[in-house]
């Protein structure tokens, strides 16, 4: 048997182990000696699912990735992105040395780290001296490790005395945060992926999880295939690859889902499908900004959303009958699990849309029991762990502490050993305000870490103008050139996944450790080292010893393991105790023993070694619920920090349409989303040949009726124009988007195909999350098919 046979049999065994098949030929023994010399346990890097995997090394080089069959997140499955990202380790396009230019029309010059850190410190200190503390800003990412986000925000808040700390989760998850806090009093889902295998009904709304979360979708697929009686409802104006699983597809006019959700609530109450005991025990009804109302008033408010009235509002295939069917399936199943993502969150009324999904669960008691949960899917691997929990947004400090709460702010200052009052009491600029501040020249120095706002912000051209200003210093830390590094003064090369050590916290409150397995290329460094060295210089530039104090506990620690562990220890041990995301038990020592990670709350190491809390708020399953029960005879204790009354809120929320509805000038709805093979702005996946070949450029999906009306044939070039800009794509004529709507994939970084030049930058008044998903446009055929080539930004 040659080496190739060994590898093939390893592949077969790995696949067989997922489905419990015993293969012949005694392959189990053979596999033990096959292929990689070392396997290093960690997580995937390319979405919010948190797939557990192992990186295979041969002679110290990455040669393979594999799933692990007993994984609690992915059951061993990986998607193509997750299977291939090892190719980015050592990729020839990697940034490997600091690059600088004083003016943005100059070419970059390679400089040393000493020079780079001095420049970064000088520019930020200079902005603070000349324009005040709020003239500097940090814009991070849901892909940064928790240790990185935590340390950046610590230096910015405690050192530079500004809450101008933001991250790209503002663009994707902020509405989910607002929804969880206002409905349940606590951020992040109550249940877990494990509910998928128990659910009898799935309500998928605003999510094309078949492409955006393919591994979780595979769990749904398996559940449905093995239990055909399980019902799947898919609510989406577009028939997507996710819709193939649905028993019932609800296709409604974009933005009318708020009416649809209210109509389902109306049916639930009208047909007495609700759970009066659950409502009496745990819920109160709320209206406006928090006025308590009673059930009768709530019910009366839904009379505007009878199935008949709502069908007229929603259009599409929505009839009174399908609304009733959906409501009945939702309410009557033994366990209903809702899953949603950007179609709900990236909306002007994103928080309200989240509230209305939660309402259905609260009315029916579809919560806190196996298979029942209101479960927001997350887009990035550490939007939850790093940004939502670690203090990565302008209004939240570590441990889910609102900035505006004096006592909580002082807890953080005390933990850091800095004077009280050092952290400003006022939240900083949220993402859209931050880049507006750049446009206006109010933000003079901005650090953009591991994300590309020049491509990912809505109405991107408007904000690129600001980033081009020569009086705004733009610093980018990244692994590859992007549309944003094109606008930078200083580019600092960073280590990639498995080239550094740290924790990701995925969708289901699960923190997982990925250790360094290989060296970063060239002079690339872990961000935690960069921040520490920068802060020390910053302290000297500004003559402020408190800045130095923010990194003092980490002085001299080697950056590959000791430094991130010390940062994690500070965060978890000093700032999560007594909070709902208690991670004190999830030490590096425990995480190294638990390749599946730990779900919070996990107050002790002994408890964390069980895996942590699968379902929050349930006595017997959640140690905080047990502790907080205090003589209660109820099975659930809703101790969420945002609701002092420990109640769950059923909100009266009226239907409000999109910020920009189609009109005579721009008569078509525009929406956009992910394609399975690409991630965000494709700066990584665009460099993996198999993925780029699969989808070399974005295209526009057009309903056949619209295409016929406009004389558009498949592959014709079609211009999409809004009030903000225009782009051109090849046409795919398909029964996907409903009539009067087009859909575009958003990953493409080609100047002619960047859809965010067209999208809408109106945002939710509560969450400040922009309405990427709905805007008005007009389309026209500009030519027949044209040869196109893929494009990736290079230096």
């Amino acid at each position, binding site marked *: 048997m040659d080496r*190739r046979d060994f*590898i*093939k*049999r*390893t*592949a*077969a*065994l*790995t*696949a*067989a182990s*997922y*489905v*419990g*098949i*015993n*293969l012949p030929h005694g392959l189990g023994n053979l596999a033990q000696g096959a*292929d990689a010399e070392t396997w290093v346990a960690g997580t995937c890097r390319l979405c919010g699912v948190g797939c557990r995997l192992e990186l*295979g090394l041969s002679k110290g*080089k*990455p*040669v*393979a990735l*594999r*799933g692990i069959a007993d994984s609690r997140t992915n059951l061993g*499955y*990986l*998607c*193509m992105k997750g*299977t*291939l990202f*090892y*190719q980015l380790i*050592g*990729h*020839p*396009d990697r940034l490997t040395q600091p690059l600088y230019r004083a003016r*943005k*029309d100059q070419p970059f010059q390679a400089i040393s780290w000493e020079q780079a850190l001095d420049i970064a410190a000088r520019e930020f200190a200079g902005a603070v001296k000349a324009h005040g503390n709020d003239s500097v800003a940090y814009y991070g990412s849901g892909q940064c490790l928790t240790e990185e986000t935590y340390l950046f925000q610590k230096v910015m808040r405690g050192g530079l005395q500004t809450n101008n700390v933001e991250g790209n989760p503002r663009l994707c998850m902020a509405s989910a945060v607002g929804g969880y806090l206002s409905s349940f009093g606590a951020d992040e889902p109550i249940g877990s992926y494990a509910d998928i295998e128990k659910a009898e009904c799935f309500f998928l709304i605003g999510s094309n999880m078949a492409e955006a979360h393919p591994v979780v979708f*595979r769990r749904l*697929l*398996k559940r449905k*295939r093995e239990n055909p009686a399980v019902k799947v409802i898919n609510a989406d104006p577009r028939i997507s690859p996710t819709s193939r699983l649905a028993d019932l597809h609800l296709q409604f006019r974009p933005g009318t889902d708020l009416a649809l959700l209210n109509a389902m609530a109306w049916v639930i109450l009208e047909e007495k499908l609700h759970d009066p005991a659950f409502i009496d025990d745990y819920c109160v009804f709320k209206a406006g900004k928090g006025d308590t109302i009673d059930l009768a008033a709530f019910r009366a408010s839904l009379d505007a959303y009878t199935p008949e009235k709502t069908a007229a509002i929603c259009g599409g295939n929505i009839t009174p009958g399908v609304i009733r069917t959906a409501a009945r399936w939702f309410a009557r199943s033994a366990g209903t699990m809702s899953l949603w993502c950007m179609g709900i969150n990236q909306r002007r009324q994103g928080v309200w849309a989240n509230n209305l999904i939660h309402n259905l669960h609260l009315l029916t008691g579809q919560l806190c029991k196996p298979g029942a949960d209101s479960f927001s899917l997350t887009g990035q691997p550490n939007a939850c762990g790093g940004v939502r929990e670690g203090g990565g947004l302008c209004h939240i400090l570590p441990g889910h502490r609102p900035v505006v709460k004096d006592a909580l702010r002082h807890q953080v200052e005390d933990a850091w050993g800095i004077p009280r009052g050092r952290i400003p009491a006022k939240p900083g600029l949220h993402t859209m305000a931050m880049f507006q501040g750049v446009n206006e020249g109010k933000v003079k120095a901005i650090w953009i870490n591991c994300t590309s706002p020049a491509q990912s912000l809505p109405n991107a051209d408007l904000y690129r103008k600001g980033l*081009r200003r020569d009086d705004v210093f733009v610093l980018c830390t990244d692994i590859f050139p992007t549309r944003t590094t*094109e*606008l930078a003064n200083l580019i600092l090369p960073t280590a990639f996944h498995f080239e550094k050590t740290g924790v990701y916290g995925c969708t289901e409150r699960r923190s997982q450790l990925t250790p360094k397995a290989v060296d970063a290329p060239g002079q690339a460094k872990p961000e935690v080292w960069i921040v520490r060295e920068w802060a020390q210089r910053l302290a000297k530039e500004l003559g402020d010893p408190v800045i130095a104090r923010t990194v003092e506990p980490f002085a001299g620690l080697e950056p590959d393991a000791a430094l991130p562990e010390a940062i994690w220890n500070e965060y978890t041990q000093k700032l999560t105790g007594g909070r709902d995301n208690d991670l004190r038990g999830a030490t590096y020592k425990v995480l190294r023993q638990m390749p599946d990670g730990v779900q919070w709350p996990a107050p002790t190491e002994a408890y964390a070694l069980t895996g942590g809390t699968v379902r929050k708020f349930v006595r017997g399953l959640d140690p905080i619920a047990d502790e907080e029960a205090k003589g209660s005879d109820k099975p659930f204790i809703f101790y969420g920090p945002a609701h002092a009354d420990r109640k769950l809120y059923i909100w009266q929320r009226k239907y409000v349409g999109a910020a920009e509805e189609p009109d005579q000038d721009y008569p078509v709805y525009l929406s956009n989303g992910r394609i399975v093979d690409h991630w965000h702005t494709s700066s990584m996946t*665009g*460099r993996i*040949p*198999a993925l*780029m*070949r*699969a989808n070399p450029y974005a295209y526009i999906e057009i309903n056949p009726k619209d295409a016929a009306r406009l004389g558009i044939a498949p592959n014709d070039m079609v211009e999409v124009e809004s009030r903000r800009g225009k782009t051109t794509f090849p046409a795919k004529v398909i029964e996907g988007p409903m009539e009067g709507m087009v859909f575009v994939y958003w990953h493409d970084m*080609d*100047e002619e195909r960047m859809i965010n030049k067209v999208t809408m930058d109106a945002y939710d008044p509560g969450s400040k999350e922009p309405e990427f998903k709905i805007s008005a446009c007009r389309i026209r055929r500009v030519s027949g098919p044209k040869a196109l*080539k*893929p*494009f*990736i930004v*290079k230096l």
Partner: protein
Amino acid sequence: MPIGGFVIQIDAAARPEVLAPLGKMPEVEVYGDDGKGNLVAVLDCDTSQRMEKVVEEIAAVGGVFNVGLVYIHAEDEVASIAAGDYVPSRRTHPRREQ
């Protein structure tokens, strides 16, 4: 030359109809199944591009619901990238000036 391990989910009642065309695909080896609609297969292809094509061909077979990749080995492809013999992506548009 990548090697991939796959779980192919099929209509269990259509097992013979699925296995027949798979047996004619030279790059596909079916190692076993569980009788409930899960087939374990290995794809040994010259290039990852070719593997994508074969996956599409399998997915198009009647009775196949899903072709799920669970393992991939591409050591030689990585080596060729490291050696500079294989450049995974290339600039195809002229540089745009700031």
